[in-house]
């Protein structure tokens, strides 16, 4: 595979469709067609080593599906995933696959559902170490688990407890410790703070930033919270109905958003500074991904849509250090606006 050397993770033309049709017999009797959800419809992302790449979008835009595709929880319908130059969709022996899998881990949204309630915390954190055979003997295992728990600001004594004895934030620390157990280089975080209160969210975000620096981790961060994304990311990709509409470095995306959907999303952020900025609530809702609109999928909600937008799917073009898929930007119809945010004192 010809891989651009510096790119650590590369997704090319990634697609994932889900068949949500009624059962065959019902379809035949009632004459209903097959129904396919195009959850991810052609996504190209490159993530450099050591950066935090964030995917944002509203529910149903396919951001979590991308996360699951990257770690291999779903096989892709089409397209390729390359991890450190290795094509993850190629056939490999189990041992080779395990060696690659060890290097990537996932943190899930709901710390109440992602930890086995019948296991002690020690066993939860030790599982990846055992599975990949990373410890030599019992004392080594205990030392490693203790170190992992300390790393996420818990104590080794917490290992003897069960998940229900911990609060939401502490549970998310346990799932971070588990994710770090196999000494990964790449962490996929699917809404890791969405289920947490803000003060606890701040603790977890700070912890993730500290760990990234110390362990030189690369993050793929999935979130719907733009303020969190602004805080943590190097680069941001905005998804809408299974496609990437804009990718840009964080500062560029928030200062000079290009795609009309990105602008709309930024308008929806509640304004804590009360600078009197008028929010323009955009009419309409996200259409169903079963039957997405033709051309640019955003055209029914877009104030700048033309006939071309309705007919032709826009290609991503390079602008201002990022890429944008929008005809209005490509044709120069839509001026780029500068945004400023009241800097809090």
């Amino acid at each position: 595979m010809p891989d651009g050397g510096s790119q650590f993770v590369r997704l090319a033309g990634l697609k994932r469709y889900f068949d949500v049709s009624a059962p065959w017999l019902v379809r035949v009797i009632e004459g209903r067609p097959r129904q396919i959800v195009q959850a991810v419809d052609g996504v190209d992302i490159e993530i450099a080593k050591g950066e935090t790449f964030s995917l944002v979008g509203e529910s149903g835009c396919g951001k979590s599906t991308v996360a699951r595709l990257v770690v291999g929880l779903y096989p892709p319908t089409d397209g390729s995933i390359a991890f450190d130059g290795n094509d993850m969709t190629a056939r490999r022996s189990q041992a080779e696959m395990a060696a690659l899998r060890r290097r990537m881990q996932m943190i899930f949204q709901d710390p109440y559902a992602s930890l086995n309630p019948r296991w002690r915390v020690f066993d939860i954190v030790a599982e990846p170490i055992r599975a990949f055979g990373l410890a030599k003997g019992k004392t080594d295992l205990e030392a490693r688990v203790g170190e992992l728990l300390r790393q996420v600001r818990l104590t080794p004594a917490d290992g003897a407890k069960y998940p229900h004895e911990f609060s939401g934030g502490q549970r998310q620390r346990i799932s971070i410790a588990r994710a770090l157990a196999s000494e990964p280089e790449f962490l996929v975080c699917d809404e890791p703070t969405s289920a947490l209160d803000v003060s606890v969210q701040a603790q977890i975000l700070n912890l993730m930033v500290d760990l990234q620096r110390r362990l030189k981790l690369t993050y793929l961060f999935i979130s719907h919270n733009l303020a969190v994304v602004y805080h943590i990311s190097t680069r941001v990709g905005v998804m809408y109905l299974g496609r990437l509409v804009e990718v840009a470095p964080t500062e560029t995306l928030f200062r000079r958003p290009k795609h009309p959907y990105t602008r709309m999303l930024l308008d929806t952020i509640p304004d804590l500074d009360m600078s009197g900025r008028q929010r323009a609530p955009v009419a309409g809702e996200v259409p169903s991904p079963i039957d997405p609109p033709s051309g640019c999928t955003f055209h029914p909600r877009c104030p700048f849509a033309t006939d071309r937008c309705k007919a032709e799917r826009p290609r991503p073009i390079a602008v201002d250090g990022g890429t944008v898929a929008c005809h209005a930007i490509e044709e120069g119809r839509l001026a780029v606006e500068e945004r400023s945010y009241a800097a809090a004192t």
Partner: protein
Amino acid sequence: MAAPSNNPPLLEVKNLRVEFPTRRGTLLAVDDVSFDIAPGEVLGVVGESGAGKSLTGNAIIGLLEPPGRIAGGEVRLEGRRIDDLPYEEMRKVRGAKIGAIFQDPLTSLNPLYSVGRQLVETIQTHLPLSAGQARTRALDLLKEVGIPAAESRIDHYPHQFSGGMRQRVVIALALCADPRLIVADEPTTALDVSIQAQIIALLKRLCREHKTAVMLVTHDMGVIAETADRVAVMYAGRIVEIGPVRDVVKHAKHPYTKGLMGSIPSLGIRHDRLTQIDGAMPRLTEIPPGCAFNPRCTERGRRCLGERPDLMAAGATRAACWLHERGGVGTAVTKELADA
């Protein structure tokens, strides 16, 4: 400060206590909470999960889930006590005088009735209107909350609406009898950000037009900052700070509020780290003596360990913190004690 004294408050809550008897003793979930809401005012109530904010709202509308019960204090609506009304009497107040909006629009609508039928039923319960008049009013309400093609949508069932549209229907239901107060419990939490902005704008507009007061319960400080006139911050069952929203957001006086504001990532400035409050809110069984926030507080003094502060004037807001005793003189006192 408090509501202007020349016109009486619409809602007065005084020393409200809500408790849950359990096998291991009685848990005090809302502890001595007092506040007023003036006519037409939007009071935001924020706090983290378990702070007692939803229970306060539920106690006011008389919908506490047993075994939870009001253990003390009183709730007055337009001067009339409503916390001790018999169930049937309270039913007449609820809906007519106080509307309610809940978090999940799918569970607050009956899936077996069309939205029109639910609206007509609510309208006829509270207003002396014929079926035809009630339906006309229902249609007007649906148009007012921005349901497109209301004439045909009125006969649809809740599952045929999207989340945002459903929440609009719930708002229409709450407005049926033109209540004086709406208790909105996390009205936008279940919605996507773009829909959230639409619903907030709608709620703001309707309340201005109808001069309805709102008690807005949420964990989202952004929603409060945009919508509320005043805000009450709750922690472990008590109000720790209350005041005009601008002052609380910009110049918080209680250490918890300060930490809470700092922990919200904001746009425009990228901090290396967010301010964090270590630890977590205590469980109801483990509320420490003295100030409930003291184990997490960076400015804790000896007095905070033993004596519980009540709300006291602190600049433009009122905060329950010994630092602000006698208009800030307390600072030196507690610091000194901490050093001792």
